[in-house]
């Protein structure tokens, strides 16, 4: 089929150095690569997006990228109603040929590597995971991270804390909770959150680890290097460009909605950010592990359930 323009819908402004920005940037890159027009609908919030979807469909958009797990009920419904293909996240079960495709994003492979790296650089033998909420994509990364830590140094403790209900914007809460996690011994923080992740970063920058040394921060999805003041260890970067580009190709080829799209280490759609804060000798072994994962030598199963994630943490902590 012919495809002239696509649209991406994101809940927050596409300038958050995270989920939203990465989605918008990737969509831009994919549109440029495949030669289609892109409409960006950002800051839509977590309410009802049906009006926007209908409007986009009326405007002749040929593919709508619903880049939020909260949109995965509305988008397939409107796809059906308006006969316009949509791509959603976190609902692989809703696949529908020609209409609905899923690209559940899981950076668990990258998070696993981050976990290995964290365990390597931790001096105190304790690392922290701070999240603002427990959506599936974060759960799988939290789990991946814990598995990585465990694999690298089984004795390492993992402290896990969720900030709270309104935590997307709770920057002060992010700082407070991260501060407590650092005080509980963590000297590497794996942080996932939107606005609150800036609070986590702030805590990392301004709090000393229990051994008096520096605390390092591992970010997810986006690249905050330009904002870094020397505390960013790495980031599990996502790049949806290949995903979006192949969606466009699939629509053109008439095969849309027949397969799941993934981000993964193998095509660099998930990768670990190398910063100057990574010790020189630590990077090479991590890259070797990456190759093992790609080759299938190491298998990491994604864990999406919050309770299972917690079990993983306490498990580790109990050792």
């Amino acid at each position, binding site marked *: 089929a012919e495809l002239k323009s696509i649209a991406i819908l994101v809940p927050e402004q596409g300038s958050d150095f995270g989920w939203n920005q990465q989605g918008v940037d990737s969509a831009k890159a994919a549109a440029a690569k495949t030669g289609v027009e892109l409409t960006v609908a950002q800051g839509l919030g977590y309410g009802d997006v049906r009006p926007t979807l209908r409007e986009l469909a009326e405007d002749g958009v040929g593919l709508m990228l619903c880049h939020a797990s909260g949109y995965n009920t509305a988008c397939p419904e409107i796809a059906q109603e308006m006969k316009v293909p949509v791509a959603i996240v976190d609902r692989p079960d809703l696949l529908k040929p020609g209409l609905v495709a899923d690209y559940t994003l899981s950076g668990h492979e990258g998070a696993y590597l981050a976990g290995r790296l964290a365990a390597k650089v931790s001096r105190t033998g304790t690392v922290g995971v701070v999240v603002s909420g427990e959506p599936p994509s974060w759960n799988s990364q939290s789990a991946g991270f814990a598995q990585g830590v465990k694999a690298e140094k089984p004795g390492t403790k993992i402290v896990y804390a969720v900030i709270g209900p309104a935590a997307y914007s709770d920057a*002060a809460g992010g700082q407070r909770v991260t501060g*407590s996690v650092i*005080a*509980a011994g963590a000297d590497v923080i794996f942080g996932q959150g939107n606005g609150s992740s*800036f609070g986590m970063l702030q805590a990392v920058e301004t709090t000393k680890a229990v051994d008096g040394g520096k605390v390092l921060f591992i970010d997810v999805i986006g690249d905050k290097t330009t904002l870094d003041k020397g505390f960013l260890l790495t980031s599990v970067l996502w790049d949806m460009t290949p995903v979006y580009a192949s969606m466009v190709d699939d629509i053109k080829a008439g095969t849309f909605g027949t397969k799941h799209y993934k981000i993964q280490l193998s095509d660099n759609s998930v990768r670990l950010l190398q910063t100057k804060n990574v010790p020189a000798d630590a990077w090479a072994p991590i890259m070797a592990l990456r190759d093992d994962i790609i080759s299938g030598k190491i298998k990491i199963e994604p864990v999406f359930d919050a309770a299972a994630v917690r079990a993983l943490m306490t498990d580790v*902590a109990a050792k």
Partner: protein
Amino acid sequence: MDMILSQSFLTSLVVGLVMAGVPLLLAGLGEQISEKAGVLNIGIEGMMLIGAYAGFLGAWQTGSLWVGFLYGIGGGMAVALLMAVLCVRIGLSQIVIGIGLTLGAEGLTALLHHVQFSRSYPRLPGVETWAVPGLSALPVVGPGLFDRHPMVYLAIALAVILSMLYRKTHLGLTLQAAGDKPAALDGAGVDVLRTRFAAVLCTGALAGLGGAFMSEVGAGLFIPFMTNGAGFIGIVLAMLARGRPLWVLAGAALFGACLSMTTALQVAGINIPTDVIQMLPFAAVMAVLVIFGRRASLPAALGLPYVRGAR
């Protein structure tokens, strides 16, 4: 489990309590001044938010937290000025205007943030703490409570000072008369409107300072909607405290402690879902109300505009 008992962790819980509690304390003390004087200041959430934004802006532009606090106070007072003119001077409904101001402040700060900071997310450098000589050497509470930014001490001192002012000077009497029987205060030769006007401005100043503390010290940055209902909790604290600043202090500490506890339980690996733990502070307040819920002695003229000689 050992980390739960480690000194540094316990300290961090005290720190968490202080960080969460101070903005609530300032907001509660501020709201209390208005309420005493008979103005139910529902706009305090907006005042905090503007204070948070202005405080961050000031600190970020000048590099000085103290200048930031002044900005925050100014921001809060600007909103309060609007409220005072509309509700005290003109006598419009305090609840309507309060909600309007909160909405407006939410929208405005989110827009300003979008225009100014959403591409750079600037953060402030770490906060300089000031250790109270002697006390800061105590275990746990020493570093947790007595090695903080001076604004923490000032906020706590403010509760004590206000409590003393209310008891020792005519401030408390004047405010109480403005709230309980404004006509009597007027008859005694004190301008009721001016008293209430000043009270609302003080509320704005304290709420703005609380917001500024949140953005400058609590988070080190500004994020839209970051006050997250702290102002409303301030209203609740002020109402529960029935005019006594030290009760606001206790209430703010309780709330802060509950928030700290949620972190503590999680870090301890106690597997209760976060949402259940998050209910703690609110459930605590409701429990207090159910158990001690006698007729809350709110000022008789609370919420009513004063018009001299009205019949």
